[in-house]
């Protein structure tokens, strides 16, 4: 079902689309990945939002020619995407999967990608160094990729998408697993790319991330286009639901004590890493439990490393304070992730509307 955001939609339709899906369906056997999707994405930065399983990755893989549509046509820059190697000069993808040729150094990896794009040795080296500089990896570019942190790996993946300077970029969950500072830096880089004239389609299941990048969003749910247009109106719907954010950190008790005092935090719950709850367990915890009014140690931990689950209705303010805290060295936050149960509720609302 389409949300009527008339002015924004009208504006986007008037502009020649960079990415165009015409009645596209994609089936995996009996499973529907995308369902009769018609979508035109204009130049600039666009956010692709949806809960897990919404079809975001399928859409990006169709747009980058890795999948063939079961029905309909997919065009990027006016060209069909499937089996079209010449189009690959014009697009870059930062894939979701955390995969590299691990034995390479970061610079070697990016240089190899540049060479595979047809650049000569010197040109490839220069382009790789520049791409690593842009994503803030100059200091670490001569280290083996296998030893990189999650944030460094995300930046390196972004660099390989940039190295051949494509006009169109696809970024699949680029902030997954990054710490707040790296997240802020990546947002700056992506904004810069948009300002420089690149068209960027960023997928995420966290509205806050996308909102920091662009006002233009596309909402997918269960393979269907639910809404497209301005982020603010979607955001108003989402703010009716509390946000749950998981922080993985070294000294979780101190961090919990710190954040619970913030006005915009409604509740904090401590969850332990000792005893090995998996990220999936934490996600489940985030998705299902109601938070207590005050912080509590619902799962006791023997060590200092652990995770806390924060509930807030003002995520912008919370993320801003958290970034400042981390930047000042007040906390060692290793990972931040927000669950999409809020988004799921909004999708249910939109679909039933």
């Amino acid at each position, binding site marked *: 079902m389409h949300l009527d955001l008339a002015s924004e939609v009208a504006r986007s339709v008037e502009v020649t689309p960079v990415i165009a899906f015409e009645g596209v369906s994609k089936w*995996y056997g009996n499973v529907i990945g995308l369902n009769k999707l018609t979508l035109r994405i204009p130049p600039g930065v666009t956010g692709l939002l949806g809960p*897990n*399983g*919404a*079809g975001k*990755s*399928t859409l990006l*893989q169709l747009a*980058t*020619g*890795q*999948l*063939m549509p079961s029905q309909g046509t997919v065009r990027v*820059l006016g060209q069909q995407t499937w*089996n*079209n*190697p*010449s*189009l*690959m*000069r*014009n697009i*870059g*993808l930062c*894939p*979701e*999967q955390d*995969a*590299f*040729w691990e*034995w390479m150094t970061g610079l070697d990896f990016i240089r*190899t*990608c540049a*060479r*595979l*794009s*047809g*650049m*000569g040795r010197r040109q490839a080296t220069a*382009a790789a160094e*520049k*791409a690593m*500089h*842009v*994503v*803030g990896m100059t200091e670490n570019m001569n280290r083996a990729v296998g030893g990189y942190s999650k944030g460094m790996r995300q930046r390196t993946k972004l660099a*390989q998408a*940039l190295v051949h*300077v*494509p*006009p169109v970029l696809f970024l*699949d969950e680029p902030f997954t697993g990054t710490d707040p500072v790296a997240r802020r*830096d*990546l947002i*700056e*880089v992506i904004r*810069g790319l948009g300002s*420089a*004239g*690149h068209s960027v389609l960023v997928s995420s299941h966290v509205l806050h991330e996308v909102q920091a990048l662009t006002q233009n969003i596309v909402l997918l749910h269960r393979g269907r286009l639910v809404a497209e247009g301005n982020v603010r109106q979607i955001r108003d719907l989402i703010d009716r639901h509390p946000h749950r954010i998981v922080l993985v950190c070294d000294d979780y008790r101190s961090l919990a004590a710190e954040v619970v005092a913030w006005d915009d935090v409604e509740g904090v719950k401590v969850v332990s890493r000792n005893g090995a709850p998996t990220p999936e367990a934490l996600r489940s915890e985030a998705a299902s439990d109601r938070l207590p009014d005050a912080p509590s140690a619902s799962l006791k931990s023997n060590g200092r490393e652990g995770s806390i689950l924060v509930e807030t209705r003002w995520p912008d303010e919370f993320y801003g304070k958290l970034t400042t805290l981390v930047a000042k060295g007040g906390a060692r936050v290793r990972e931040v992730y927000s669950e999409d149960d809020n988004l799921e509720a909004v999708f249910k609302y939109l679909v039933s509307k």
Partner: protein
Amino acid sequence: MTTETVNEPLEVRSGGGFDPIALSALFFLTLRQNIRGRRLIILSVLFLLPSLLDVIVRFAPFPPASDRLEFIFMFNFIPHALLPLTALLYAAGVIQDEVEEQTLTYLLLRPLPRWAMYLTKITATWLVTSLLTAVFTTLTLVVVWWGTPELFDVVLPMRALKVCALMALALVGYCSLFGALGLLTRRSLLIGIAYIVACEGLLANINMGVRQLTVMYYFRVLAVRWLSPADNKLWLDRWGLKLDEIPTATSCVEILLIASAVFCFFSILMITYREFRMKTPEGS
């Protein structure tokens, strides 16, 4: 991190067919991938076995002559077991390894036609397997003929080159066959080993026309044509071949190359029209 962008994005660029720079990069990338990891170490150890066995046999009370040892190790043990196994371990993974390691995306997102990508990778893989085989077969030849005047008069100047060429030719067939198998099924290792045992092992030894469907048959005929001694009764009897019935060396080479081209053609068809779905953490 900087807000500076790499460059202003370029205008929409065309072209993307046969790019020699990109393909040479892919060729060297594949070479580098193939010369690292446990696979090379395991195969090197296996390839040292014939030399070690030869040394052990030499300590026996009545050691066989060098030509007998050569026949056993060079023309039976290595081509029956090690040669196809080497091709299987390398060629079956030429695309499959990239899929399993989820790095194929980085190749599919470059302006490389899929057919050229496959041919480049399989060629690099053939080169690595041929070099690996050449090094260890030469070593085995040296060990087998050690202490005889033939080593420096005949074996090293000519015979080693011919043996390496023969092995390389057989590897063309095996690499193209197992390359296709790797695209056809994820269980290529299991099916490949079954094929090596059943077809290249058993079928090739049955004195029927069907053995002409095996690489081993042409390997043996070429060995007889190019390398067998003047008194080649042992070779012909053991392999069940009759000199006046077997094809010429030229025919054997042609058949091997044509069969390889057919397998490569099927591989190209498969890679061109197949979707490679990379796993995502959420499976979306």
